[in-house]
């Protein structure tokens, strides 16, 4: 699981040409999360956290921008990916590329660490009286918009992955000895069946147990 999440092991094994962009893209995002944590820490212990924040930020923005642009080009020109691409998949990648590129521009153009630390402090103390350089302002606006947009996209997969990876693939936990599961299953089995095919024999009243234990209704030939 760790190797899968940090190094995208599955993509490395099965789709290496995508991994070249996908790994830096995802790793860039992880580094930026680390940078944000360090920026928050820098408000308390600047000497330790600021250099770390700069290193994570620089690597994160560069890797992320490389990955996002690569993925965008690949999605637009690789016939295998293009067929399945929707407008939103391009939009998401453009948005992310803008996030990384604006971040890189802000980082390399001025007092990024100082201003970001001030911004975080101001944000949490609800202090609007703060002035920031234009590239940093632009980056913060893009980052905020992205955070608002994120929950409406399939990009939430980074959260879902914790559930899907094992739950969908391998969740075969036995019911024997699991009283809570058995209670839930009994309740589910008491629900009415509404499937309409004749062989099911649902009549709006029978529940799962009734349907699964009754004798088979006569039916005309299926297709």
């Amino acid at each position, binding site marked *: 699981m760790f190797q899968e999440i940090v190094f995208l092991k599955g993509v490395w094994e*099965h789709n290496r040409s995508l991994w070249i962009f996908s790994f830096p893209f995802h790793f860039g995002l992880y580094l930026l999360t680390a940078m944000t944590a360090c920026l928050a820490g820098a408000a308390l212990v600047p000497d330790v956290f600021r250099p770390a924040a700069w290193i994570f930020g620089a690597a994160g923005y560069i890797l992320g921008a490389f990955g996002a642009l690569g993925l965008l080009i690949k999605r637009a020109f690789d*016939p295998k990916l293009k067929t399945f691409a929707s*407008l*939103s998949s391009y939009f998401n990648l453009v948005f992310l590329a803008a996030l990384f590129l604006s971040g890189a521009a802000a980082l390399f153009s001025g007092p990024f660490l100082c201003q970001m630390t001030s911004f975080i402090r101001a944000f949490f103390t609800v202090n609007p009286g703060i002035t920031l350089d234009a590239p940093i302002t632009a980056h913060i606006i893009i980052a905020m918009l992205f955070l608002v947009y994120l929950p409406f996209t399939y990009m939430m997969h980074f959260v879902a992955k914790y559930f899907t990876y094992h739950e*969908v693939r391998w969740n075969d936990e036995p019911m024997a000895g699991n009283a809570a599961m058995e209670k839930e299953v009994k309740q589910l089995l008491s629900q009415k069946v509404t499937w*309409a095919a*004749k062989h099911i024999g649902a009549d709006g009243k029978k529940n*799962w147990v009734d349907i699964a234990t009754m004798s088979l209704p006569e039916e005309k030939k*299926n*297709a």
Partner: protein
Amino acid sequence: MPKNLKVEDFGKHENEQLTSLNLQDLVPLPPPYDKLGDQPAWKQIKHEQTKEMVVNLDGVSACSLPKPKSKEEENELVEKFRAGLKKILSKQDNWTFQQPLTLSLDYCAKCQTCNDACPVYEMSGKNDLYRPTLRSEVLRRLIAKYVKKGPAWLAKFKHGNIDLNWTTVSRLYELAYRCTLCRRCAQACPMGVDNGLITHELRKIFSQELGWAPKELHEKGTVQQLKAGSSTGMTPLVVKDNIDFIDDDFSQETGFDAKTPWDKQGADILLIHNAGEILSWPENVAAFTIIFNAAGLDWTLSNQAPSYDGVNYGLFYDDIQLARIAIKHASTARKLGVKKIVMGECGHQHKATITIADRVLVGDMNVKRESCLPVLEKIVFSGKIKFDPSQNNFPVTLHDPCNITRNLGIIEPQRRILRYLCPQFREMTPHGKDNYCCGGGSGFAVMSPNNFADWRISVGGRKKFKQILDAFGDRPGPETKKYLCAPCSNCKGQLRDLLGYYHAGEKAGITYGGLVELIVNAMVGIKKPYVKWE
């Protein structure tokens, strides 16, 4: 073959095929099958048949779907499909699989990493129609546009376009039967998305809402099993007669005790075979009896319908039919008061009875259920039976049934037996949880309508055939007799057809059979070899 098939084309050009298949597009096979001219030609569907039957996918028909008689009927069927789409997503109607389905639909990153893991897609020469993701993407778009609330432009922006019409519905039905539900794609997906499960759910919409399923799985499958007692049509009387005959025959032939105990109250084990074995591979049934008797196990078969047939095709297309059969199996075990049910050599029986049925067997119906493989392993290494591995001194390879290995994780017991009893055992590449399906999974092994047998062998089973030939690549000629061990009745059905199609017995000296046959073949004191080569 049209490459770059667009998802939105799926609902267009009703009477045209989306793609066509040609032998020369498929991945080539190794010698002696490397000459295209030597491979059997495919049966074509006659023009006459297409007047009555829908053939608008790839020129193959697995489902023999009749054309609707009128526009009204067409619309009615489309509406039913739409109703089924809603139900499949509702916790009340689809409590069995709604959660993994929703996760699989919502979190696909559309990276196509799963594609190359699919043997159908790969061996078809990467025909876009067979991407694991295509049918899922069609379904995903239909749900976004026609089921989920919200403006149409948003669905289009997020997912792309698709039309829900008769063409889409009829093509989806047929396409749901071009996937063997082997779940190899799910194993490759970095997100854990399961396109095999999505196919399974699609089949459920057709069966549970529209009443559509291939007749081999439904009428001749689950319905016949629930009514007569077995998908083979055998009633309790016929089964008893057949097994009595097998007992006598194999007792004489081997010199071992092959007498079957019936309906023994309070036995430790209720053994349930796939009843197909009784008719097609009686040596497998007899081998179990010989081994269990020789090891002194307290066991029984049941003569109670349908508990002499472990088949449960409900696994492939219909949750309710699955539950009906599983409940009957469990209640026989409960009435007999056995300690556990042991599955014979049948992969889908394992999956249906051990895990899927678990969610409907509450209270004392939740009888312990176990695979025959660890039971056999314990017997072989218990010292209760004497073996002479030199009696199995011929090349042996192992086919891993998807439902036993990838889907249940039973990998080693069968291997430990083979390493011990078969000096020339060799693995296929890849194997174990990474195995390839035989091409007969999800019910295909029993389906041969129209020209579907050509498809399931040439395309569905192609990767497996290539693996088998490669495993025996050091001694490819017919002069060396080689054994393909497949501990699954459905897989054997497909492998029988596959080897027969390519005359692999005559051309490559390959025969096939189960695991228990090899165990009996190695037993000290057997009158004559148990494995037959003709």
